[in-house]
């Protein structure tokens, strides 16, 4: 079977009407995973509904409290946005590691999330930044934290006909920053063997007042490791605190051994990445507030 229909709605209501459960529909928020999946025979939609023509889905909006990234906004547009890379340098790092520049012109954070790969780069960064998913369905709207959105490898929490509309991130204060690091054998054009994202907030005396630590490619879905964040809060990010956070992520990791790395290696290296991501996020705060 090949794709029979390609629809390009220009509004959310048209998109909802275009999605036909019986016609094996797939949303297309960029297509960088969907088209590869169709080519490999892993996906076989009869109808593809393109979301790129819906203004609300490609918008990036920032106010005093929050940052909203349309689910189909391209990684390139996010990276070129005047504010987002400064507010979330770690999220920008994650998006900038996806594929190549050409891929980034099509792919989207929302699509990366819905594709729900255990190794997705942007998901740990969204989790660390406490992003929420705004979901529109036939019965209305609901919100879901990103860490609850992915339910398994390539499985998300969307019910049939539901659509991820946008990602809502709390706007960080000047004493909060983030970082994302991944391990790939190559420098780029590769898939994470392990990934780690950290968002931390420091007070005037450099004491950590809030921390979120998320890890990727070491479990069926990216994990929020609350124990790792808890280990940092109240410390000045000294070695004892960092060691405790590293131990917490290694305990939380449930990796498999596969062609991209062994379970032993992933467990080891995700700790290394968390340790380095903490240092990087910390440096970002202290550099701007010496």
């Amino acid at each position, binding site marked *: 079977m090949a794709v029979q229909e390609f629809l390009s709605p220009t509004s959310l209501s048209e998109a909802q009407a275009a999605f036909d459960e019986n016609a094996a529909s797939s949303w297309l928020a960029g297509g960088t995973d969907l088209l590869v999946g169709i080519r490999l025979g892993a996906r076989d939609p009869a109808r593809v509904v393109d979301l790129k023509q819906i203004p609300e889905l490609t918008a990036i909006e920032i106010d005093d409290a929050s940052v909203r990234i349309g689910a189909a906004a391209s990684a390139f547009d996010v990276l070129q946005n005047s504010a987002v890379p400064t507010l979330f340098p770690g999220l920008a790092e994650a998006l900038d590691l996806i594929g190549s520049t050409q891929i980034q012109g099509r792919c989207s954070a929302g699509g990366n999330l819905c594709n729900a790969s255990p190794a997705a780069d942007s998901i740990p960064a969204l989790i660390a930044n406490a992003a929420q998913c705004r979901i529109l369905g036939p019965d209305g709207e609901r919100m879901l934290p990103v860490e609850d959105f992915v339910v398994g490898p390539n499985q998300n929490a969307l019910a049939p006909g539901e659509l991820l509309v946008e990602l809502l991130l709390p706007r960080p204060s000047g004493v909060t920053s983030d970082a994302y690091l991944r391990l790939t054998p190559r420098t780029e054009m*590769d898939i994470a063997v392990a990934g780690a994202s950290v968002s931390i907030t420091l007070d005037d005396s450099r004491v950590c007042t809030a921390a979120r630590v998320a890890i990727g490619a070491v479990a069926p879905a990216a994990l929020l490791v609350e124990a790792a964040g808890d280990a940092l809060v109240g410390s000045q990010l000294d070695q004892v605190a960092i060691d405790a956070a590293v131990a917490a992520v290694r305990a939380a990791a449930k990796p498999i051994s596969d062609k991209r790395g*062994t379970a*032993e290696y992933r467990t080891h*290296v995700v700790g290394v990445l968390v340790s380095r991501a903490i240092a990087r996020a910390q440096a970002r705060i202290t550099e701007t507030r010496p």
Partner: protein
Amino acid sequence: MNAYQEFRIIGSRPVRPDGLDKVTGRARYGADLSMQGQLYGHAVRSPHAHAIIQSIDCSKALAMEGVLAVMTGDDLVKPGNEMLGSGEGAMALKDLVPMVMSQGKVLFHSQAVAAVAATSPELAAEAARAVEVTYEVLPAVTNVHKALAPDAPVLHHDRFPDDYPAKPTNLATHISLTVGEPDAAFARADVIVEQTYSVPMCHQGYIEPHACVARVDAAGRVDLWCCTQGHFAARHFTSAATGIDLGKITVTASEIGGGFGGKTTIYLEPLAVVLAQKAGRPVKMVMDRGDVFRATGAAPGAETRVKLGATRDGKLVAADVDCLMDSGAYNGGPAAFPVYMATACYKLTDARSTGRSVYTNKPKIHAYRAPSMPQVTLGFELAITELAAELGIDPIEFRLINAVEEGDANMMGAPYNRIGLRECLEVARNHDHYKSSLTDGVGRGVAMGYWINAGMQSSAILNVSPDGHVAVLTGSPDIGGSRASMALMAAEVLGIPFDHVQPQVVATDSVGHTDVTGGSRTTLATGQAVIQAAEQCVAEMCRRAAIEWGVEPGVVAWSQGAAHHGDQTLTFEELASRAGTMGGPLTFSSSLNSTSAAPAFGVHICDAEVDKETGRTTITRYTAIQDAGKAIHPDYVEGQMQGGAVQGIGWALNEEYLYNEKGVLENPGFLDYRIPVASDLPFIDAVIVEVPNPLHPFGVKGVGEVPIVPPMPAIAEAVYQSTGVRFRDLPLNPPKIVAALTDSRALLPDPQ
């Protein structure tokens, strides 16, 4: 003494004639040709790595609207024992035919078992799925040691290399060679090193997948367009596999997006020809990337035991090398080159060398740049480095003490002519890179390499047009800038501008036989044919000028693109424009079987830094030094050196085929088969050394293959110097390095 000592434009760096079309997307590669009315072929491939085909039923596929032909292995010849081809591409017909399409037994996963032709690619794929094949599945063996075990499943029941005719085994070849008395020589050694080194099966990494279009005319003549390193070889192999007379097949080589040895054979060509014959319409076939990985020949994995002995003063006295190689499903003969050449860089009068190759349920291995030499050299050069360290001698100094020079012989017996190994080592020792100090955590390795280089058959035709421009026609597909080199050589001899020469790669019927672009032979041998054709042109122009001036031909001199006698001059352009009234068209051809080949030697220096927490290795500085004889177009010599180094870096650090226990490849694509990307690499500093080849008029030595020989041992040594841990099994990927450096297993939480 070379016939030409001083050069006008040889050694300059003009833009290659084919460059603009390639960078602007206009060049026509294998999949870029379409013929009117063409069908699309699609191969049915085995889902099993080892099986007996019980039945093939194509009736449902053939009944589909738009499906015009089907074929199976029964449509190809029933092969006997004839050998085909030469050099790197040589193989037996009985291996070639089932390699392109099974004839009853499947020996590797994704082996073609049938093919269909239909009016669209999608329909052809659907029809291929409708072909019903029943298999008796057999246990698969993909590891050479397991394949040699007494209870291993045997792939070929008609092959008895060691124990004829008692019992067939998976041992494909077993060769041994001894010079002098190695055992007695080891007894004289003060220090002996003996270690085993291994390197995995590796892909050539060419970007363009295999592709072809075949057309059969009403009289049964075949026109074949394909992406190949040698269209004469493609014609020969296709003729042998299909039984169609060689003379009825014309093959045109498309532009080629990389080959590195992997395109010196055929895969799709006989299928497209048979389908076109059956359907009466042209058939196009394009392999997808996954099938390139799963079903075409990779470079063999190898395990090499090396024993070396030296005296306290640094003199190497004995060597014993035993190389065990993976041949894949059919005989690729990978063990011969290591046997003959493992010791080729060193003065050694007492040495033993053994090579074995083993059948496994993987695609038949194929040539990859200096076939088998990187694998055996990993072991030999690392052992040399380990020996030098034990003796407390600088690794380059140790190599200088023992390096071969003119008059020395390697294990094949013939003494070397003028070679440039010692010159390369001197350049390395005095290079700023080698003299620079190392920062903390960075290690440095040095290694050298040899490749025999081929001569073989080449032809050229040179046609002069009335405006003084020249077409140079050859049968050598241009992989690494050979058109530019041919144009430079013709222009040099004729004394005309580079851009007045149009070098072309023409079809099999349009030029004399030419062997594959491989063996580092094209600039040397095809270049020699071009030089000879150009010299014929000069001689004829001088003869015509002599007639014009009423003098003996011998007194007319040729220089600066003109014939001269006294104060009389006739330019190339004048003689070209007046050809019609001075004796007729000016057209010249030359064919030769070159005996001018000279071996290539290179020395590489590598700095590497290992991140001891993550196990990632970064190559921080790299210098490749090589004797090119005479660099015709230095850009493309440097390009070969840089490309070989980069491929060696990939092989050393991350590249390997990952098979599961059923013999299915788990990483059939460039995402998980990790060749390096540009940002993984430092600038590769290429230093050309020129020690002219006395057998070639311009002094040329082949350059294309040897650059992939030294990188692996140089990198492995640099990693050792960075980490303090000696790695002898490649690739040096992050998990392997971390496992060696830390007790990472202890970090796993308890299973409950």
